[in-house]
Structures are given as structure tokens and as C-alpha cells.
């Protein structure tokens, strides 16, 4: 079944939103994600730009600051809710995995 737009998040969407729990400039998101994931997750510049635009349009983030071309963003309440839903979905998946492979209930 095709992923509904922004209803479930790709790994990159998840980490970009996670970065924006606190105010962050768009260009700093690259470093934050690398630091957060130990280099496991990388985001392309085109993908970052497109996703930030999508999140802005969907009201998941808002512009917190602007200094010339440097724009900072932060999560909105809708963004926090979306992130929380995704975290819940991932926990449920992990719980299912543990139940099947490790016999935990």
C-alpha cells in the first residue's frame, strides 16, 4: 500500500523533524542528523530542501528566524503530534519483533 503523504514518515523525514524539536537552521540539519545517528542516516540537499518545503506547507514546522538566506525552523504542535504518532508506530513494530523473535509479551 502506498505511503500516505506525511502520515507515515521515512527515516529521513523522521530525523529532520526530530532535529527541529529545538530551533535549527536548515543548513545545520545535515550535521545534527549525522551526529544523532552516528553517520547512519544521511540526507541529500535536494531532499532536505523539498522536505522542509513540504513540512512548511503541511504546517508541521514553521519558520522561527530569518537572517538573509539562513532560515531557522522549529516544530509546530502538529509536527510534534506527527512525530509522536510515528514514534508510537515504531515502538509497536519493535514490540511485535520482540514478541516473535524473543518471546517477549
Amino acid at each position: 500500500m502506498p505511503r500516505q503523504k506525511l502520515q507515515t514518515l521515512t527515516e529521513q523525514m523522521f530525523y529532520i523533524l526530530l532535529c527541529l524539536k529545538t530551533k535549527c537552521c536548515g543548513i545545520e540539519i545535515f550535521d545534527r542528523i549525522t551526529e544523532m545517528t552516528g553517520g547512519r542516516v544521511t540526507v541529500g540537499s535536494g531532499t532536505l530542501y523539498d522536505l522542509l518545503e513540504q513540512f512548511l506547507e503541511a504546517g508541521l514546522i514553521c519558520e522561527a528566524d530569518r537572517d538573509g538566506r539562513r532560515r531557522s525552523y522549529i516544530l509546530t504542535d502538529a509536527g510534534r503530534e506527527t512525530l509522536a504518532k510515528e514514534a508510537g508506530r515504531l515502538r509497536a513494530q519493535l514490540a511485535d519483533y520482540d514478541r516473535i523473535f524473543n518471546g517477549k509479551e
Partner: protein
Amino acid sequence: MKELKYRVELFSSYDHTGIEKHLEKMAEKGWLLEKITPFFRVYRRAEPQKLRYAVTYFPKASEFDPEPQEGQLIYEDYSARIGWTFVCRFAQMQIFRNAEEDPVPMETDPMAAVETVDRAARKGFLPYYIVLLFLSCLSWRSSGIAGILWMLLFLLSVIELCRYYKWRKDARKAAVNGVFLDTPRTGRLQMIFSVLLLAGILIYAGENRMRLIACALLIAGFFLTVTVISAVKLFMKRLKAPRAVNITVTLLVSAILSAALVSGVLWVCWHFFVSRIMPLR
């Protein structure tokens, strides 16, 4: 030794995979892309080198913008941050290069990438071929070589549109599983049809002197018209005219020049025809 090379290269604008591979081959031969014009890609001589190219799309951009939009410049800033150098842009297409052997790609989310290509295609590639398909359908009554030429254009439009929509469908399916799908190679198809169309035009033109003169004038006039229209568009950009003003002026000039070209060719042919039959009277 020449420093610049002008090449006519036939790729569909959404064929980013094909264009990237071609630019990488050119870099290995010592030619780096410098800019894209309506007719040519311009390359500058350099040391042969292994470079990675990325063809990306900015759907909100337009050839009629007075300068790059702020969003495009921010996009460039993000790209420079991960090692991608901006090369040039044309309409919605933007080209970057990277000297690293294994750089972080500019697109890492396949679904977002497909949707961006689709949004850009709706502004350029798709309207172009839909209009061509429509015009070739209107001309279905044409007979002889003219009929064959319109048929070729009809076939080209159908094949290009079908290939695009198939790629888009398959790419979206692959993207659900996190996989990028290469675009279909369009260069060869474009080359084959261009050769067939040119051959058809030459056969059509060769049937009699009037057709030869008309075709020669139309082709020369077409290239001159497109050159003048590009110059007008560039002039309006230099004046920092807003997009809407640039489009209006360019369309007006296009309409006037096209009408002048067709009228001029008809006048020459009529006079040529009349002067041929006058002695018979």
C-alpha cells in the same frame, strides 16, 4: 586548441540519469559543462577528470525569472554544504557536480525525488509533447511526405509520453520500497526520430524548387526567430522585468516574428510561383 565546444544533445528533460552519465563521460574526456542554451550545451576544455554530476529540478523556477529565486539560492547553499558545486540551470533543471568519489547524493528520498521530477515535467516536458500530439492529430489528413512527417511526430509524442508515464508509475512503486529507478534512456530515441524527420524534410524539400526554397526559408527563419526570442527573453531578464512581463513581451515578439516568418515565406513562394506562370500568359 578550442576552449569551448558547442553540442546539440538530445535528451528528454526528465531523463536525469541519462544526462548525468553523459556529463560524467564528457568530464572524463576533458570537457566540463558550462551552460545550456535553447539549441546547444556549451562545454569548456579542462583536465580529464572523474566527476559526479547531479541533475535536479526546481519546479517553481522559470526561464522568465529575472534572477534565480531565493529558494534556488538556498538550495545551492544546502548543496554546497555537502560538496556539490552549482554548474548551471535551464528552466526547471539545475545541474551540480562533485569531485568526491562517493559523495552524499543530492536526492536520498526516492519518493520525494519522483514527485519533484513530475512537478517539473508538468511545466515543460508534458505540455510540449501533449501540444505536439494534438497538432499531429489535427494534421492527420496530410498526404505524401508531409503526412509521413506528421505521423513521425505523432509516434514520437506517443512514445515519449508513454515512456514517461510508465517510468513514473514504476518509479513510484520502487520508491515505496526505498529504491531509486533510473530514467529510461531517451537520447537514442530522440536521435533516431531527428534523423528520420530530417530525412523526411529533405525528401519533401527536394520534390520541387518552390518547396526547397520554402523549406530553406522556414528552417533558417525558425532558427533566427528562436535566437531573437531568446535574446528578447535575456534582455528582459537583464532589465530585471518580473516574470509575467517577460512572458508577455516574449510571447508578443514570438507571435509577431512567427507571423512575419510565415507571411514572408508565403510571399516569396507566391511571387516565385507567379513569376513562373507569368511568361505563359
